[in-house]
């Protein structure tokens, strides 16, 4: 069953065409990584699906809601209520964490459930603690983001994204801002979510990780999807552009 479907998506920044006619679907429980060089449009694609950018053209459907559809030649967005509903049913993890620095770790995680979903404080606190425990952060509940390492910060931001119990989780280069030795702990957490059957869309430069965790790999280049296939097919592809890109990474087994 498809939980995310993107059809003929285009995104221009002024005259620059960043996304050119992108279409794909993601099924319930699937883990899809999006790879490609910088400027290929993968982050923009993720941001379009999470309402951080407005599409120039195209249709996006998430969890049975239509976020944007085409009305003739112009994109038409869903009502504010539907937009918010979609945001609550999806989680987004940023490259730079973007934790709220003035809130404790616990409050970072419970703020959206309380403010946005209207869950009673006590219940939200319990759940937030549960999430922090699961991610090995329970001693950090009262700490502030400035007291955390990069790896801990990213785990907190994953906990924050999970707090609204999203059906789909998006990761925008979750380890790119981390020292190599901290990357592992974040990747481990993401893998542990895979075991929970969470649908995940991950933009990453970690090729070994992509190969290991993905059900499918999408390779993007210059605003188009070049390949959309099982990891072994993409990593052994005969396509010249794919081979050239993957050739820059030495860590692929």
């Amino acid at each position: 069953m498809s939980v995310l479907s993107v059809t003929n998506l285009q995104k221009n920044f002024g005259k620059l065409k960043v996304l050119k006619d992108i279409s794909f679907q993601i099924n319930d429980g699937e883990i899809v990584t999006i790879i490609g060089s910088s400027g290929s449009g993968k982050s923009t694609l993720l941001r379009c699906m999470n309402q951080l950018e407005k599409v120039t053209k195209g249709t996006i459907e998430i969890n049975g809601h239509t976020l944007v559809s085409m009305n003739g030649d112009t994109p038409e967005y869903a009502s504010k209520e539907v937009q918010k509903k979609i945001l609550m049913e999806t989680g987004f993890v940023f490259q730079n964490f973007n934790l709220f620095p003035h809130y404790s770790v616990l409050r970072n995680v419970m703020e959206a459930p309380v403010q946005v979903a209207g869950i009673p404080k006590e219940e939200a606190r319990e759940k937030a603690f549960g999430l922090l425990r699961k991610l090995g952060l329970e001693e950090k509940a009262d700490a502030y983001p400035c007291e955390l390492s990069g790896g801990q910060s990213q785990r907190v931001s994953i906990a924050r994204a999970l707090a609204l119990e999203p059906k789909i989780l998006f990761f925008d280069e979750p380890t790119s801002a981390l020292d190599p030795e901290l990357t592992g702990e974040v990747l481990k957490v993401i893998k542990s979510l895979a075991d929970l059957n969470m649908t995940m869309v991950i933009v990453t430069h970690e090729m070994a990780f992509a190969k290991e965790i993905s059900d499918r790999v999408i390779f993007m280049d210059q605003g188009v999807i070049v390949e959309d296939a099982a990891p072994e097919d993409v990593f052994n592809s005969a396509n010249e552009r794919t081979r050239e890109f993957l050739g820059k990474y030495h860590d692929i087994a």
Partner: protein
Amino acid sequence: MIDSIIQWFEKLPGIADMLLHNGLDQTLIIFFLTLVFGLTLGLVLALGRMTRFKIIQLPVRFYLLIMRGTPLILQLYGFYFGLNLLLGIRIERTMAAVVAFSLNYAAYFAEIYRSGIQAIPNGQYEAAKVLGFSKAQTFFKIILPQVVKIILPPMGSECMTLVKDTSLAHVIGVMEIYVVAANNMSRSRGMEYLIVAGIFYLIMNMIVSKVFGILEKRMSYYR
């Protein structure tokens, strides 16, 4: 010689007591009411200055230019006598001073707010957005608390200036500390009154400085 110095110092407590009962209340009324109204109006002006709607932004920019670009003393005169001469409206002097001060200081506060708001990284707005926060929730829960921390130092400075600027209210006949001291000085032909008035301003600003120090410390739990 020694006797005359001692005599001079002995006059000071009496003068302080006199100023405490004549003038200090006017100074404090102007100071606190200007803070309340100025900080509120300033926030509204800051938002108006930053909106992309030109129909709001341009008048606000014009307002900020006039208020910051002309002397406060002219604005006091203009507000008090102008209203009277042009429209025949007569308001109580202290209230006129409070309104004129608030209108003026709001312009400076607005720019301080704006500097703070623009210092917040875009990622904070984006993080709030993907979690489903509304625009109002994002501003009041996520942005504003962080802005307060950033703008405390310049706000403290501005408040110290306000303490001293209250002395300008005498030009429209408000009997605040400075003018009371100055009137008495010309009668007594000595510096004592002005020195005591100066000490009053200094003490008020030591308190302002202390209060802001405490606030900054309370906000220092995060970076």
